[in-house]
């Protein structure tokens, strides 16, 4: 069976469109459902403000929808656009574009549901502050959209840039890997940066006097959550724009695909973990505003440690991208490199989330018992170090796969 290039490109764009809107529909729906759930809770607590709450819910849901709409637009482009020159490389780029935007919309959709829900419940408890809460919700959800916008940028590049008529292998793996990297790398940051937004809105209902501080702390916390998405963006851009056409096709293709998986998937855990710490700090500041300094410091230390798995992912990706691998005809050599990427990538998810849970516990209790900040910080760091161990095992196995076998 021989197919012409046109057929391959069409196949890739249809499958990419399916992934794009299929994955992209997950997040927005979950986030909006969460917002609606808390809006119902708020109305049941305070039925007299139902008008304000419903208005706020609809505004919040509209923001959460945007990631889903990005995915819809990319899927429609994939189906209908006529590409002036079709090459087999374009097929890989289109599949990558679908994965980048589809997976990239999951996190932002889920994450921007939290500020929406928090604001709805907050308005029912503190109706006089409804304007302030809606503003805070909009700022919080806008930050949550950042990873989806990164994904949109990478998807648009993959759709519209001309990748030339050069050799297909190994460049196809770079384009597909870039899409996977940005798509999955956006999940954790999107979800994580929603937590502080939700807690900040609820905190305003509890302590209207410290609204300003809560917004500041929310922004610091959610900005740190973006780090893993930015790492993924860097690796995706490298995979798109470095020239790999002189490298031997095998095993370089596996190294490039592995590089995309390592940073992209490891970013899921770190993004979510950083968000847990930030959410707890907003809650803590609202409970006990005088502890602002200690709470923010503990949050930042906890978040920094939670970034470790994504930094290990970045390290393995750089090795896979920049190390020159000798040409091989065996299957074992490329599979070792692909295995290295999968190992560090998936190995980073658990430790990232676990570090976030530890930091959440420590930050929560620094706010309640500020005299014990020292012992809490110490315990947090010991606990995080132990929870980090499996990410380090995964990195060791990856390095063995790259350098030893």
């Amino acid at each position, binding site marked *: 069976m021989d197919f012409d290039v046109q057929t391959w490109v069409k196949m890739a764009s249809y499958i990419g469109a399916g992934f794009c809107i299929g994955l992209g529909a997950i997040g927005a729906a979950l986030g909006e459902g969460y917002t609606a759930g808390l809006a119902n809770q708020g109305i049941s607590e305070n039925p007299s403000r139902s008008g304000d709450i419903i208005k706020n819910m609809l505004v919040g849901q509209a923001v959460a929808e945007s990631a889903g709409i990005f995915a819809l637009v990319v899927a429609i482009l994939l189906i209908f656009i006529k590409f002036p020159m079709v090459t087999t490389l374009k097929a890989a780029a289109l599949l990558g574009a679908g994965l980048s935007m589809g997976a990239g919309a999951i996190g932002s959709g889920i994450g921007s549901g939290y500020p929406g829900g928090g604001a709805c419940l907050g308005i029912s408890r503190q109706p006089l502050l409804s304007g302030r809460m809606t503003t805070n919700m909009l700022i919080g959800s806008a930050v949550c959209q950042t990873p989806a916008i990164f994904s949109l940028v990478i998807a648009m590049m993959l759709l519209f840039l001309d990748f030339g008529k050069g050799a297909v292998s190994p460049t196809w793996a770079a384009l597909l890997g870039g899409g996977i990297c940005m798509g999955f790398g956006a999940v954790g940051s999107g979800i994580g940066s929603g937590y502080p937004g939700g807690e900040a809105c609820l905190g305003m209902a509890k302590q209207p006097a410290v609204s300003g501080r809560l917004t500041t702390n929310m922004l610091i916390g959610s900005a740190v959550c973006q780090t893993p998405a930015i790492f993924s963006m860097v690796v995706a851009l490298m995979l798109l724009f470095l020239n790999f056409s002189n490298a031997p096709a095998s095993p370089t293709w596996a190294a490039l695909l592995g590089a995309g998986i390592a940073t992209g998937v490891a970013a899921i855990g770190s993004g979510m973990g950083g968000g847990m710490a930030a959410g707890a700090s907003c809650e803590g500041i609202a409970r006990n505003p005088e502890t602002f300094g200690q709470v923010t410091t503990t949050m930042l230390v906890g978040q920094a440690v939670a970034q470790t798995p994504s930094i290990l992912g970045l390290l393995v990706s750089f090795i896979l991208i920049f190390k020159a691998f000798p040409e091989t005809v065996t299957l074992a050599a490329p599979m070792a490199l*692909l295995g290295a990427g999968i190992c560090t990538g998936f*190995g980073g998810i658990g430790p990232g989330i*676990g570090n976030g*849970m530890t930091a959440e516990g420590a930050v929560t209790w620094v706010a309640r018992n500020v005299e014990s900040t020292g012992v*809490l910080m110490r*315990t947090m760091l010991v606990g995080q170090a132990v929870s980090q161990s499996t990410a380090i*095992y995964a990195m060791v196995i990856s390095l063995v796969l790259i350098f030893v076998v």
Partner: protein
Amino acid sequence: MAIEGVDLMKAAAFIGAGLAMGFGAIGPGVGEGYAAGKACEAIGRNPEEAGLLTRTMLVGQAVSESTGIYSLVIALLLLFVV
């Protein structure tokens, strides 16, 4: 490109090692983090017992680590023994 049986087996062992350690690392990471988070909570409630609580946390985490070590052992077996 002729792929021999030995090569195919090695390729499968390498991918298997990556999958084993990669997915095996998820659970212990989350579990140990949860234990440490709860330990911080308990120390916050009752700072005088910090020593005992840290010890309990470490023992609990060591048990939770076991499946991660199983994954590591299997990954090393796949890499160097089979």
